[in-house]
């Protein structure tokens, strides 16, 4: 990244979201809706290898929090801690607390299945099921117990529209999802995650495989979604972080170096390393 970040943030306000996203006032108070997720002194281990060191981070409700940092610094790891997807990797260990609406999700007796319905996720690599496009989106509601096909069809259409995919696939909902292009697959995965109607949406570089047009569509979507959802997004694209997020957290080698309002962070970062990273001097 060599382009300097313009101090006028957001750089590109999504046209559709314009009326609802005032640029100044809204950023004033990130926590006016409360805190949705809190990480308290989170240390994370892959067997012997420690990937996260004492992370303290509050994710404000109905806001977009961007996680940035060089490759391998632990962004995806942190994201996966928030819906306990790391549980699936053998030998992992988390020390510390992660609170969702004040409840520790790592405490004994937490229903992980229920948790993942509340905290949805879009993966770094798109991973559609080898089923039809329709079945991919309908899967979440289905496993949650929705049986009526009228309701399922409604959900599928709404979510595909939100993910800016409906126009391209509406005539071939019964084709295999794997026939879609890479970018279409990623948008399908976003639609699939939306279909479970989560409270928190974790997005791991959702736009890394998308062309500018779909990226813009996804960013518009994120703007719209934060009215109802709390969003945590990992991105390598500084402009994107600046455009879509309210709060930015900078990770470096497993440490949380700096977190703050996106406007502040991109205009006058407190830490030298943050400044170097967002201006593209390393990373």
């Amino acid at each position, binding site marked *: 990244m060599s382009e300097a970040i313009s101090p006028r943030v957001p750089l590109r306000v999504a046209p559709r979201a314009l009326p609802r996203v005032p640029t100044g006032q809204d950023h004033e108070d990130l926590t006016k809706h409360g805190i949705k997720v809190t990480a308290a002194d989170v240390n994370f281990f892959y067997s012997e290898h420690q990937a996260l060191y004492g992370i303290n981070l509050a994710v404000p409700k109905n806001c977009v929090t961007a996680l940035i940092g060089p490759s391998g610094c632990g962004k995806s790891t942190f994201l996966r801690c928030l819906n306990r997807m790391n549980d699936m990797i053998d030998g992992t260990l988390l020390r510390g607390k992660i609170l969702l609406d004040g409840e520790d999700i790592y405490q004994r007796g937490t229903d992980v299945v229920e948790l993942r319905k509340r905290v949805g*996720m879009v993966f770094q690599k798109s991973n559609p099921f*080898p089923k039809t496009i329709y079945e991919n989106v309908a899967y979440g509601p289905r496993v949650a117990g929705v049986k009526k096909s009228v309701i399922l069809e409604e959900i599928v259409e709404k979510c595909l529209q939100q993910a800016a995919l409906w126009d391209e696939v509406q005539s071939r909902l019964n084709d295999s999802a794997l026939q879609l292009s890479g970018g279409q697959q990623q948008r399908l995965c976003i639609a*699939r995650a939306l279909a479970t109607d989560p409270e928190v949406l974790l997005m791991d570089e959702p736009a890394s495989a998308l062309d500018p047009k779909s990226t813009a569509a996804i960013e518009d979507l994120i703007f719209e979604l934060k009215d109802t959802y709390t969003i945590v997004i990992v991105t390598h694209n500084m402009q994107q972080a600046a455009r879509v997020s309210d709060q930015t957290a900078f990770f470096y080698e497993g440490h949380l170096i700096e977190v703050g309002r996106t406007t502040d962070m991109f205009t006058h970062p407190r830490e030298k390393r943050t400044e170097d990273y967002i201006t593209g001097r390393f990373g």
Partner: protein
Amino acid sequence: MSVSKYSEGRPYAKIASQAFALACGLCTLLSVSVLVLLLWNIFGFGWSSLSWDFVTSWPSRFAAKSGIWSALIGSLYLIGVTALFSVPIGVGAAIYLEEYAPPSRWRSLVQINIANLAGVPSIVYGILGLGLFVRMMHLNRGVLAGGLTLTLVVLPIIILSSQEALRAVPSTIRQASYALGATRWQTIWHQLLPISLPGILTGVILSLSRALGEAAPLVVIGAATFVRFTPKNLITDDYTALPVQIFNWTEQPQVAFHEIAAAGIIVLLTVLIAMNALAVILRQRFSKKVRW
């Protein structure tokens, strides 16, 4: 054509490569020709004895009057019983080992044992079946005892091949399913089983084909060789099976019996081919649900 400067050091590389390809081709040719010769021999020997009468008649003391009906039905019953027990238990065990059991010493121990059991000669299972099913559980010498013994023979193979099939499902599929709030069972039922089904079916058919051809364990637990009825009671009634009947006929001194033994082999092969065809059909049916 330009020659890379590196190939100068290996002047024989090309010849060696061609020689290796030739050797591989010869090996293939050899095994295929042995198979063709064998089939040719059997068909030439048994074809004249093969008729619809032969298929539907009871065995007899006279080769010319003998038929294979009781053995054919006995074999079908056996395969049915074996499939009934070995498929659910085998696939269930595979699911448990792959999807539920956390990695532990205990799991590795079980895993190694299953792999070893797959290599145990089937006659050993015959002795086990004799002790366990016939004597201890008093299942007599009926189809049930035979089917359970064959279940022991094929169970390790079904478990191993089903595990292989489950392991081949990309872990990203599991992650996607769990991340959408699916339970373990929902993930297995809606994602993993449909995707791994072709692999599981292949393993099941191979195993059942093997069970169909097994004579040794059945002889050990006391399958009869001369049965002029089809079993009505799966525990008390005597039965015989194709390989046992064929084996018995080849033991007879008269050449006429050897001929009907060859005809019996043709029947056995036909059943095998039918089973494999069924597998292909099932596989295509089920794979419609999965869209790669």
